[in-house]
């Protein structure tokens, strides 16, 4: 029985715990053993917190025995190493924070722990979440469990890879330009970026504050609904967190989708798109038509400018956010600074990797005197055009669909020295962040043995609806149940 535990979804594991088929300690030990056995090859974790995990598991078993279980009691979860965890190193994938022990815990982690979740450890990621391949991590690249010579995507690459390899049944991620959805697609898992402001950013290390949003990653939409139920909600400590009622995501999963209108933005199926990628997403849309959905064509004319707008706004916000890493209050400090200026410059130059430095420089340039209007102001204007395109589309449709990523997982090193080609990995995901909308990526088939994903984009605060659509699709298909051969026998 324990052999199959790692292939079960969170929802199945929750039922197993409730029925007493296994304890949280057995479950946690099983995943810790899998991490120990397989993660040397995958590199999906930066820190494994075995001792704390087992203590949380024992507490969960006590709570379950007493009938005091919460939403996630006893379920092992991996947190992206961008969330502060008191007493546990929080590196954000950077040398800058290699020795940073967070003095407090992020709201997301706290809320999930309050619902009984067991933290297995902290997952690998692109440095400060800047990347689409997980190759910018100070801790080395993560491998894709479907092909160890390929990237897992990024920046939540460790989270997606450990889920794909079944080293954890659920994981948190963050998404600034596609960092939950693109790795979800490349590892055959399901991941949701909620509406901007739906989930608290408190204790989540900031990259681009107007775009960053945390969300759930798991095997299925049903599991993402379970996790989001625990993660979502207003938080006074995050002034951008919105005071909107949290819907019953689990309750909405089985809603009938007949009559649902799906919009297909023509810009998500350009002539240049790989035909096989387009075919897989079109097949997924047809499956939903069989379930009663209607399909209409829509246009998002300004979306072609989403990558350029993003690469002004995100670096500008990053250059400002990352100015806090100055070698004075926490994080890396250089040896023997000769004066304060030298302390700042050498601490930052030693602590940050190349991609982070590039983005800081682009941001500082775009915000500097003489260039502000041409770059930053114009990017914010284009951002409004993009949002208005989505708003017009949502007057006619309930959800929008298209491929999550323009290609399957690429080879490690293939785009490392070509930032602009790397940035295009997020061409279909970035617009959603600029508009602040919720969107999910779900597995929709393979090309040459590599997973592909399809995105379901909803209107503001319609997480329940997109989870419902994805759940219905997953009830009718089994792409999301496919696991790689990697780490398969135990």
């Amino acid at each position: 029985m324990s052999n199959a535990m790692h292939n079960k979804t969170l929802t199945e594991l929750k039922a197993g715990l409730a029925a007493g088929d296994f304890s949280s300690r057995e479950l946690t030990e099983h995943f810790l053993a899998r991490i120990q056995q397989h993660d040397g090859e995958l590199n999906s974790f930066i820190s494994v917190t075995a001792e704390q995990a087992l203590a949380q598991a024992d507490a969960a078993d006590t709570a379950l025995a007493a009938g005091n279980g919460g939403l996630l009691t006893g379920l092992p979860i991996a947190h992206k190493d961008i969330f502060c965890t008191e007493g546990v190193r929080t590196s954000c994938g950077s040398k800058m924070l290699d020795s940073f022990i967070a003095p407090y815990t992020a709201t997301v982690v706290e809320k999930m722990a309050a619902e009984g979740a067991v933290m297995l450890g902290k997952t690998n990621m692109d440095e400060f979440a800047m990347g689409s391949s997980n190759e910018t991590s100070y801790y080395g690249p993560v491998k894709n469990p479907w092909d160890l010579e390929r990237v897992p995507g990024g920046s939540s690459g460790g989270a997606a890879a450990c889920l794909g390899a079944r080293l954890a049944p659920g994981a948190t991620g963050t998404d600034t330009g596609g960092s939950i959805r693109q790795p979800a697609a490349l590892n055959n898992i399901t991941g949701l970026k909620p509406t901007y402001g739906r989930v608290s950013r408190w204790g989540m290390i900031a990259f681009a504050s107007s775009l960053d949003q945390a969300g759930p990653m798991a095997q299925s939409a049903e599991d993402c609904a379970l996790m989001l139920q625990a993660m979502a909600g207003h938080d006074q400590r995050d002034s951008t967190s919105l005071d909107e009622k949290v819907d019953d995501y689990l309750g909405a999963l089985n809603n009938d989708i007949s009559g649902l209108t799906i919009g297909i933005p023509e810009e998500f199926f350009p002539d240049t798109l790989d035909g096989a990628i387009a075919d897989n997403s079109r097949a997924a849309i047809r499956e939903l038509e069989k379930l009663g959905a209607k399909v209409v064509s829509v246009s998002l004319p300004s979306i072609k400018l989403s990558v350029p707008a993003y690469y002004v706004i995100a670096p500008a916000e990053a250059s400002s956010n990352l100015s806090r890493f100055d070698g004075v209050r926490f994080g890396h400090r250089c040896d023997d600074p000769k004066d304060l200026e030298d302390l700042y410059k050498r601490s930052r130059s030693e602590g940050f990797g190349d991609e982070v430095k590039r983005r800081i420089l682009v941001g500082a340039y775009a915000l500097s005197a003489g260039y502000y209007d041409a770059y930053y102001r114009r990017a914010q204007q284009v951002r409004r055009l993009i949002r208005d395109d989505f708003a017009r589309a949502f007057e006619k449709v309930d959800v929008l669909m298209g491929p999550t990523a323009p290609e399957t997982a690429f080879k490690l090193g293939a785009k490392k020295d070509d930032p602009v080609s790397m940035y295009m990995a997020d061409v279909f995901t970035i617009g959603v962040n600029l508009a602040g909308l919720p969107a999910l990526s779900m597995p929709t088939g393979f090309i040459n043995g590599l997973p592909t994903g399809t995105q379901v984009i909803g209107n503001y605060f319609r997480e329940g609806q997109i989870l419902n659509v994805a759940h219905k699709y997953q009830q009718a298909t089994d792409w999301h149940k496919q696991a790689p051969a990697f780490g398969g026998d135990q």
Partner: protein
Amino acid sequence: MAIDSKVVAQVAHLARLKVDESDSGALSDRLNDILAMVDQLQQADVTDVAPMAHPLDVTQPLREDEVSEPNVRDKALDIAPAAEDGCFLVPRVIE
């Protein structure tokens, strides 16, 4: 709006980053690649379009001016690279 090694040096100073002269050429090439891509923004007609800072045009909320967080000075100083007498320690700035 191509940038050269001189502009890189200026911007690096603004961002308090140290760029080695040997890396400066390759770095300005990469930055120019990025800026060339970003320059597509110039195609957009943004006449009368207000810059957008928040997708739902929400403004900053206000709260009562009361103490909501505990004093964590000791915890904050514990993780500092250097601290003394309740202060962060840096190289001398005033002679």
